């Protein structure tokens, strides 16, 4: 029996090589459509400009004065800028991974990826690398842009913010992998990502604090990694973050870690089951 060729490289080195290979593909794909890349990014910056004007309108109207003001740290623009920039970061694991999978299936190279000697569980991780890097840079630029527009941040909170963002991205990636397991079978529809995205946009504390929602629906917010990431970030990055309501930094870190510990085994199990079923039914590679 001939020995397999894979162990030529050590596991750690192989992960590095594979990551770099996927990263390069992502970069080449993006620079292949430069205008599309630039316009997409400009469009996302447009939203922060919109929030700048909305916050000016809200502040003038006195909507966030007194107790309500305390809930947004008396600075609605910074409050909402953190919410929006975080959404940019967290999109990588969820929306962008879903797009990557759909592109691979529709363009036809997904089948070829499955024939390569890589563990299939690595595929979502490989495919999401460039979107994560891209989302991180866009999120950072969004923060930077918001500073030029008047947002104020406590820079001492950056290390904690990086930890929160990393955990948030990891937790949403687990949901993304869960969503991909459906996409392998459905090819296009993506119920998990769609429902999660909808819930996160509405109840993820992006533009208003969780306490603003009626008590009956507040539990939805606490089921979303978005809520903990955004709330934690506001606590560490806003100058008056300690006065905010909602989950504390340690609660957020604990919740996000718990999400990762619970969701990853489920996500990879589902992904494996989905691949097994697709292999049996002959659905892999089709579109």
């Amino acid at each position, binding site marked *: 029996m001939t020995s397999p060729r894979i162990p030529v490289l050590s596991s750690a080195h192989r992960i590095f090589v594979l990551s770099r*290979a996927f990263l390069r593909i992502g970069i080449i794909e993006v620079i292949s459509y430069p205008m599309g890349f630039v316009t997409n990014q400009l469009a996302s910056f447009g939203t922060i400009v919109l929030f700048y004007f909305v916050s000016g309108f809200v502040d003038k109207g006195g909507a966030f004065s007194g107790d309500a003001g305390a809930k947004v740290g008396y600075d609605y623009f910074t409050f909402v800028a953190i919410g929006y920039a975080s959404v940019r970061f967290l999109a990588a694991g969820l929306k962008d991974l879903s797009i990557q999978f759909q592109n691979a299936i529709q363009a036809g190279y997904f089948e070829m990826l499955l024939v390569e000697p890589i563990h299939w569980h690595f595929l979502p991780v490989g495919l999401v690398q460039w979107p994560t890097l891209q989302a991180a840079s866009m999120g950072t630029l969004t923060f930077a842009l918001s500073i030029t527009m008047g947002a104020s941040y406590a820079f001492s909170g950056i290390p904690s913010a990086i930890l929160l963002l990393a955990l948030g991205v990891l937790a949403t990636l687990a949901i993304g992998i869960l969503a991909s397991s459906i996409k392998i079978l459905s090819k296009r529809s993506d119920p998990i990502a769609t429902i999660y995205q909808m819930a996160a946009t509405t109840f993820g504390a992006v533009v208003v604090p969780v306490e603003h929602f009626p008590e009956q629906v507040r539990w939805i917010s606490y089921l979303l990694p978005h809520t903990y990431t955004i709330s934690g970030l506001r606590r560490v990055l806003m100058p008056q973050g300690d006065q905010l309501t909602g989950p504390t930094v340690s609660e957020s870190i604990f919740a996000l870690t718990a999400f990762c510990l619970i969701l990853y085994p489920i996500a990879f199990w589902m992904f494996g089951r989905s691949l097994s079923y697709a292999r*049996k*039914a002959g*659905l892999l590679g089709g579109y």
Partner: protein
Amino acid sequence: MKNAKVLIRNLTKTYEPAPLWSRFLVRTSSKEPIHALTDISFDVNSGEICVIVGPNGAGKSTLFRILTGLITPTSGYATIEGFDVTQESFHTRSTIGFMPADDRSLWLRLTCAENLAFHGRLQSIPEKQLEKRIREYLALVDLEHATHRVGFALSAGMRARLQLARALIHRPTVLILDEPTGTIDPVGAYQLLQLLQKIVKEEEIAVLISSHRLEEIESLDDNVALLDKGRLVHWGDLASLRRIWTVPRIDASFDSATAAEAALATLALSTDCSAQQSAPDTLTVTTKVSVGALLHLLHDHQSHITSIQESQMSLRELINQKLQAAEIERQETHL
């Protein structure tokens, strides 16, 4: 004895109708079980080319998808280099070079070199060797001049050659080519097959190739697996198929239509051959007797014969006859 690089034993694949819940995910038309492969067994050794032939729906793609790990068989097994293609798919995928029928499997926004580099990295080709290997294999498939050209800018033939380079660059011991010449012009297809034969000879690799082009099957002149409705109706070299199935055919031309008709009447009395008038002055005789024996039968008409010629049954007819016989056999079994 040669080593069986690919070993296929009693391989069967039945696609069950999609359950109701999965029909909500994606539209499917299957309501009855589809027997894509039934009890297929054969081997492919080092340095051999096995041509998988069969009409559409014969099971060729299902067989390839099982070998590449994309589909699991219902029963039976297949091994590549001793590794089970279902249980040890991860290992077999590093041993095979696969060229799918669809050129969409290339990253068409990537250049030829980038396509090969990506695949090479996934195949664990050390970075130091990668650039040299890319140059070597692009030269092998005559795409050196297109190294930095993106996939979209390549012709169908060039894309096929790039796919072949990709299938070869990690130096596999088994090559699986699904209709590699399907989109290429006949000259390009001929060149690609010439190249393939050269590589097989030099590298001693085992090749499974599916094709609809009969001239290609003939030119490869190696083992043929003839599939029909998921069953293996012939396995062996083309010569053995011809020996079993070819009935020699003789075309005899006469100086007039009347002479041809008279000869036809004489041959009608013989049990050794069957004749028909293929043109007013020509008879086509299918017979197992020699030309000499036929001339003996036509002794009284010899002075009217202007030419006589033995021809071999075309591969198309040969395959068609074999498929028809398999169908009759299947129907008789069901009765």
